[in-house]
């Protein structure tokens, strides 16, 4: 199994002590060394055009940022190699930022930045782009207007097919991530995959599937020939009161908790999942993602320990 480490470990959106450092390039220069020292030399890049709008090009999460600081994506990749990171295994675009102002705005921006993320992946030599297939439920309700969820999902289908064609041209595999807060949460993704371009694959994200109430192994079995990337994410969270429908589902309003834990600190059955992935002959990338850490260095080291013990080959 080929493990990559997700740079989603760094939370840029929410308040935390010393958060401001995360907007400067020096922080990211050092991140490469920390990730490498943790035993990881392949990474996932969250593609976040949000920082383009404030001119935060020190944050290497978009084509604009990378070309502003390094001139070309090729230069950036050479810089990464010089700093302990050999490859980008996955690029993740979550276009929920654009879920405002109505459906045309969302689909227009998601399409534009989806193409940009694919172009970035191609230039970076990355073979997988994973797309958060729908924004959170509550955000979608805010842009439906006269349409309904079915109509919205038709738009998603069109978007996915359009991006799949772009991905094919670029030699990249488009995958779909279904967070537990989305319209295609849990097992619903299987039926949706059957309705889009056959080259589109599933991003099997363990904690998101589990929180949505799915049996992770069943979802993997049902899509055994369509898994393009696996995310090992961990959780102890059980969504017993429809937190997935709330405005900020990663922060349960009724009882504050860390929905996503560091790897090995939650209750996802990774040995069983790993065994199943081997059984079905999965040989693609596996991204370890201790998302939105409150202690980044600790999360990297915990993930290294997890890779060396819980999911060691």
């Amino acid at each position, binding site marked *: 199994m080929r493990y990559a480490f997700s740079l989603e470990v760094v939370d840029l959106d929410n308040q935390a002590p010393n958060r401001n450092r995360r907007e400067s390039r*020096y922080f990211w220069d050092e991140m490469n060394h920390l990730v490498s020292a943790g035993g990881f030399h392949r990474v996932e890049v969250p593609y976040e055009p949000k920082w383009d709008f404030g001119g935060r090009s020190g944050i290497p999460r978009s084509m604009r940022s990378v070309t502003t600081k390094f001139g070309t994506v090729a230069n950036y990749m050479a810089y990464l190699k010089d700093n302990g990171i050999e490859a980008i295994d996955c690029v993740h675009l979550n276009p929920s930022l654009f879920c405002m102002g109505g459906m045309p705005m969302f689909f227009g921006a998601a399409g534009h930045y989806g193409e940009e993320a694919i172009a970035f992946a191609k230039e970076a030599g990355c073979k997988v782009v994973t797309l958060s297939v729908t924004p959170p439920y509550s955000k979608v309700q805010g842009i439906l207007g006269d349409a309904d969820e079915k109509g919205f999902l038709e738009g998603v289908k069109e978007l996915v097919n359009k991006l799949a064609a772009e991905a094919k041209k670029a030699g990249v595999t488009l995958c779909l991530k279904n967070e537990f807060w989305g319209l295609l949460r849990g097992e619903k993704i299987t039926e949706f995959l059957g309705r889009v371009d056959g080259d589109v694959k599933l991003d099997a994200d363990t904690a998101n599937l589990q929180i949505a109430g799915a049996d992770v192994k069943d979802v993997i079995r049902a899509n055994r020939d369509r898994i393009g990337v696996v995310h090992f994410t961990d959780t102890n969270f059980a969504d017993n009161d429809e937190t997935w429908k709330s405005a900020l589902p990663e922060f349960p309003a009724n009882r504050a908790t860390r929905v996503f834990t560091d790897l090995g600190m939650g209750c996802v059955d990774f040995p069983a999942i790993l065994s199943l992935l081997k059984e079905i002959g999965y040989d693609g990338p596996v991204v370890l993602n201790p998302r939105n850490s409150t202690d980044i260095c600790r999360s990297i080291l915990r993930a290294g320990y997890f890779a060396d013990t819980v999911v060691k080959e």
Partner: protein
Amino acid sequence: MANHIKLSHMSHWKTIPYKQIDNFRDYYYEDKSNSCYYEDWDRILRYHKATGYDGIELAPWDLPEILGLFKTPAEYTAFAADHGIEVSGMFHGCDDSHIAEKHGEVVAAGRSAVDTLKAFGGRHLNTCPGNNYYGNGPLDAEGLKNIASCLNEIGEYAEGNGIKLGIHNEFFCVTNKENHRQLIELTDPRCVHYCLDTAQVVLMGDDVIDFYETYKDRICTFHWKDTADLGVADEIRYAKDVEICDDGHRWFWEPGEGCLPMVELWKRVAAHGFKGWVTVEDDGAPDYLAAMALSSYYMKQVLGKIYW
């Protein structure tokens, strides 16, 4: 005797994801870190009151999450009031205001910002007049007039709604050292005021004392902060993405931690008899709680002994 000055703090906290954390002790024990101290509005507002602030200035980029948690501006305002905090104002950016064809769009966005601020019960719409210099400057006379025209129209609407529009000129803004005073002259003094950001004008290369004396009748509020960079070179101010430095260099410091003549300026403020909101802006501070406390101490214990 009532104070002349009300102290506010510009909200540069990033998204605060909880309205109120009731299971604080349990949440703390999950990872035994201090993160949980910075994740709910209940505590953030308590910190404002505890460190001596009367108000908070909202950042428009936080509004989707704030409204997600509070549903309506009125509910947020009431929650803040329960903590003894008022909404003093909101920041706004007039992107594309130099482009004549964008006039209608820019004015509509400005009016919408006025409506939003009014719904939150705030008074000051502190408004960056235009885009960044990079990619847009230098402006010709027409471009500057277009900006003034947008500000005048938004300002008139604001005034009619009890809101003060104050120009807030960033040091990397398309209106800059060579023309920011000219912009003030082009705007209508009846409805376009000035939010004096003490650090930004100095970073631009202006003299803050002279600026204050020249425009004191236009100044409706302050962003009070310090800097250690007196007059940043053109090639830096006009470059791409200069607000955040690659090496972590800070443009802004808490009052008293930089080099500005704060006492001298405050004496001028006192002599003029300014009354109203003064907002501390701690952007770039690594620890906002410490920065709030440090800033409040300086404002009240150093400047406050001269005038308050």
